């Protein structure tokens, strides 16, 4: 039942904010923040209660489950379940949600509606992370689109329609292919066993021919490849991030993109292990291509948001590697990477927002010498940039290193090429630092807008990243997925080989 609370609280808060706040952004902020903080606390409590689970219980222990019938005619259940993976990503969702809620301010029109949409998006994302019924998962995954689209259209700036429509279309294309795969799997399971179900644990035991298995996996992968995004399905992303409001961009990049990584780790690979092994070289090649190509594109941009957007794509390319590494190291590395990237990209977009507010531009060619004006802000931004380029001692390194380690086991060449992403990441990260913070101060229109609050948030995020960088073990211990039995055996045999 606690899972239902976690899922529903943000949405309830959003509705409350919508009806109570009207145009008063302070009220909206307070309600929204409370509705994000409450599930956050619940999640922390859950984590604390379950932090003791040992390696022996791995693969069997759920932190929480909840099931009621939804559409019994097709065996569809409103089934929620939480393991370490879901816990961490839910935690990230609520944390980022809280950050977003706290950054509401007077500059947003219709604060009540804005809060509602942000809250609905959060709930949909939590639904993705908590669903253990594939139908529920898919519904959540697709429903994310609606508030996301509304946020883009209503609160974005620039060419929002084009960007939003592209976003919608790309995601729909991937989503529908995944729908075909999910339903196909459902039917195949029914034909093989006579049981109608969408529970992924059941479905993962469906006997499938290799071809069909690969076909279904392709459907899943395409959906996630769009959302993550992987090259060449990435073109919606920079435009979308660039035209979305700061809060929306943060939710998109820090959490929504993770739903794809989550899907890969939770569904795509464990449900079709054989096919995943077949597809691994191709998918990983796309992952490596994404890392390098997106990093290269990031280097050529002048809009800070687009740089961060491409960098985000580059970093999420690693998650594909981790997921398809087919070993524990890669998987957990991918989970750590998702959490840390969520934290660091939140910080980066906050920093970008601060820069834009204070100077009126995001064009790095027009910026310069901000360090001189605000060394503290400069330091924070620098650390975030360092996290992006994967400096050891910050959480992102732990994730990327583990991913590369996991990848190397079966795909040494892929891991080696991907490792050079670190150089390209350094190139664009340092370019930001160089262009924006170094150099002589340029004419910047300093407004009275105090950056103390966003800077505090950034500092907290950085503290978390440093903590993960040096003491990642609690996170790694929690980063466990309860997998289906068939795959459990696979993991066990992989473990013996090591």
């Amino acid at each position: 039942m606690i899972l239902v609370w976690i899922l529903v609280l943000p949405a309830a808060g959003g509705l409350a904010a919508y009806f109570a706040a009207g145009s008063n952004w302070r009220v909206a902020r307070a309600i929204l923040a409370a509705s994000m903080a409450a599930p956050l606390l619940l999640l922390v409590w859950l984590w604390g209660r379950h932090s003791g689970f040992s390696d022996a219980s791995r693969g069997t222990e759920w932190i929480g489950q909840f099931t009621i019938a939804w559409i019994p005619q097709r065996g569809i259940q409103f089934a929620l379940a939480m393991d370490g993976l879901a816990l961490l990503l839910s935690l990230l969702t609520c944390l980022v949600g809280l950050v977003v809620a706290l950054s509401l301010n007077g500059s947003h029109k219709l604060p009540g509606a804005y809060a509602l949409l942000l809250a609905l998006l959060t709930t949909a994302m939590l639904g993705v992370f908590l669903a253990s019924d594939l139908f529920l998962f898919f519904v959540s995954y697709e429903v994310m689109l609606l508030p996301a689209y509304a946020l883009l259209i209503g609160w974005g700036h620039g060419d929002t329609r084009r960007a939003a429509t592209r976003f919608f279309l790309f995601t729909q294309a991937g989503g529908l292919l995944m729908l075909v795969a999910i339903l196909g799997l459902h039917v195949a399971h029914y034909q093989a066993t006579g049981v109608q179900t969408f529970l992924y644990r059941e479905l993962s035991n469906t006997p499938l021919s290799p071809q069909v298995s690969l076909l279904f996996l392709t459907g899943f992968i395409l959906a996630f490849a769009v959302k993550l995004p992987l090259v060449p399905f990435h073109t919606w992303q920079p435009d979308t991030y660039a035209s979305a409001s700061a809060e929306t961009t943060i939710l998109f990049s820090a959490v929504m993109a993770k739903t794809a990584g989550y899907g890969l780790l939770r569904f795509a690979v464990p449900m079709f292990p054989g096919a995943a092994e077949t597809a691994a070289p191709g998918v990983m090649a796309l992952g490596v291509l994404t890392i390098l190509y997106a990093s290269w594109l990031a280097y050529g941009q002048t809009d800070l948001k687009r740089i961060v957007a491409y960098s985000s794509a580059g970093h999420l390319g690693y998650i594909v590697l981790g997921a398809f590494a087919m070993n524990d190291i890669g998987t957990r590395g991918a989970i750590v990477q998702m959490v840390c990237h969520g934290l660091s990209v939140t910080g980066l977009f906050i920093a970008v927002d601060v820069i834009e507010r204070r100077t009126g531009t995001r064009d790095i060619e027009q910026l310069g010498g901000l360090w001189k004006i605000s060394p503290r802000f400069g330091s924070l931004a620098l650390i975030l940039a360092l996290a992006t380029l994967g400096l050891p001692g910050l959480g992102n390194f732990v994730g990327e290193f583990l991913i590369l380690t996991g990848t190397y086991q079966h795909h040494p060449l892929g891991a080696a090429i991907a490792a050079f992403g670190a150089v390209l990441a350094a190139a664009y990260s340092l370019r930001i630092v160089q262009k924006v913070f170094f150099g002589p101060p340029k004419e910047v229109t300093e407004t009275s807008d105090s950056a103390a609050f966003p800077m505090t948030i950034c500092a907290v995020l950085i503290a978390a990243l440093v903590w993960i960088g040096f003491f990642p073990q609690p996170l790694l211990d929690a980063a466990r997925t309860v997998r289906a039995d068939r795959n459990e055996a696979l993991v066990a045999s992989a473990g013996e080989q090591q």
Partner: protein
Amino acid sequence: MNFVNSLLWTIPALPLAGFITLALFGDRIARRSVSRIAVGTVSLSALLALVFAFRFVTAPPEGQAFQQALWSWIHVGSFSVDAALRLDSLSMVMVLVVTVIGALIHLYSTEYMADDESYTRFFAYLNLFVAAMLTLVLADNLLFLFLGWEGVGLCSFLLIGFWYEDPKNGRAAAKAFLVTRIGDVFMLIGMLLLFWHFGTLHIQTLLGAVNTEGHSWHLTLAALLLLGGAIGKSGQVPLQVWLPDAMAGPTPVSALIHAATMVTAGVYLIARMNPIFIHAPGIQHLVAVIGAVTLLIAGLCALAQRDIKRVLAYSTVSQIGYMFLALGAGAWSAAMFHFFTHAIFKALLFMAAGAIIVALHHEQDMFKMGGLRRRMPLVFWTYLIGSLSLAALPLVTAGFYSKDKILFEVFTSEHGKLLWAVGVAGAFITALYTFRMNFLVFFGTQKSEIHKGTGLAMALPLMLLAAGATVVGFFELPAVFGHFTLFSSFIEHTLPGTHGDHASHSLELMLMAVSTAAVFAGIAVAYFIWGSAAKKSSDVTKRPLSRLLASGMGFDWLYERAIVSPYSAGARANAADAVNALYTALVSGIEAIAFSLARTQSGRLRWYMAAIAFGAVVGILLVVYA
């Protein structure tokens, strides 16, 4: 383990604490306290290091190493890495150099940086650097070492770009970071390879396994990859291009990071992982070749520089080349000994140069100096001592003993004759550019005004190091001079011994004579060209050869053309992302089809009829005959 031994962690932790204090509360602390914190923490580390050194000799720890596990870092399945320290004789030497010279440079900086508005930031970075460098040398596993490795890279970046308002400095900083990172990635891949092949990153376990396994292609590849990391960090050919530009940082930084400590991390890495290289003889030989090529190229480049710091930078590259040469020839202790003496005399040279630069109001062009001998006697003498050590003046300088040990052992190693010849040629060039520098700066007519004298905080380190540059050579005397082997005996607790002991004394003397001759020849030629007032002003940088040398043999030019420009110009040209075209084409394709389909909606009845008939016929064919 007794109490003192359990304090091992404080050696890196003290500077780290200094950094954290300065970073968080820096703007609320008075300058005086800032320098106390910064210098104090590093000095305390140095003291502790000396205590450990003393204990190492008096009460050698079990297994010839102090060990301390700090916390469990990353454990995932079979992958397990802890944050743990290990202090053996090799790291002892490194720790001593880092802390003692670090402390002296901190002290020096209190005066050198006194007028800088970002005083606190400077010391914070410097403290962080010392902490990271100590982590690097004390780490007992490769990943923890990599943490320090990247940490020093970061500090190097921050300090090169310390005066960030000049975009040139920022570019130099980014260049340094990027070029070394290319090496780092190779090293990272090497770590992955080692982990999956041996199942661990713990250095001692790993090396044990390496010795058991013996020669294999895995090791050859691993050695090559580690070498990649080492040449990046240590500024060896072909990744040496960043180091001369790194001189954009404040001079104490050049002394500490880009001469004495960080740039020798590559040497440390290879020495530390020596069994891997020993079992990959091809790669080890490659190390020697890279060292030889580097020392020659860098020496030649140093000859054509105008900027005093760039001369020293190229000289550093060249001297590390000697260390690589030694490593490649299997002269492990000689390499470390040269590292040790080089750290002292190069730090001395940089700091003395810094004193000149400050005195001349940040003038770094040697052709605008001159005649400083009389005006700055202290600096002159200390600089001269350092220069002589660099040039390896026989008998009285530390540099002589270390370089001679290298040359001797290279000569006696397998295929060592040619490498030795290169080394001797390098010795000649070293003497040449060193004294070119001395003559240009200290002799002849004075061209610039002295703005400022040298205070105690700067003078004291100079004097101490000058003494060191003379004395430390006697730690290790060649066989002909009594075979006193304090240094190598100590370090050979960790590193393999040398093979040249069986060589005859006459050979040793003969080799010494040759290299001595080369050094004197170099000094003489330098005097002939730059020593007399008449020729001194002649600017040789106009000639093509000189231009080539001055620009670092065109490496920068080549990289710019071959890599940097294509990459950045390509990225700019593709800013709109060519992949978009794919979708644009798709959309226009669909629209074109849609429009042609729309034309079928002509409204004409007969056409509609025809379509129905057509459909029916096709349908019938499909149903009946398919």
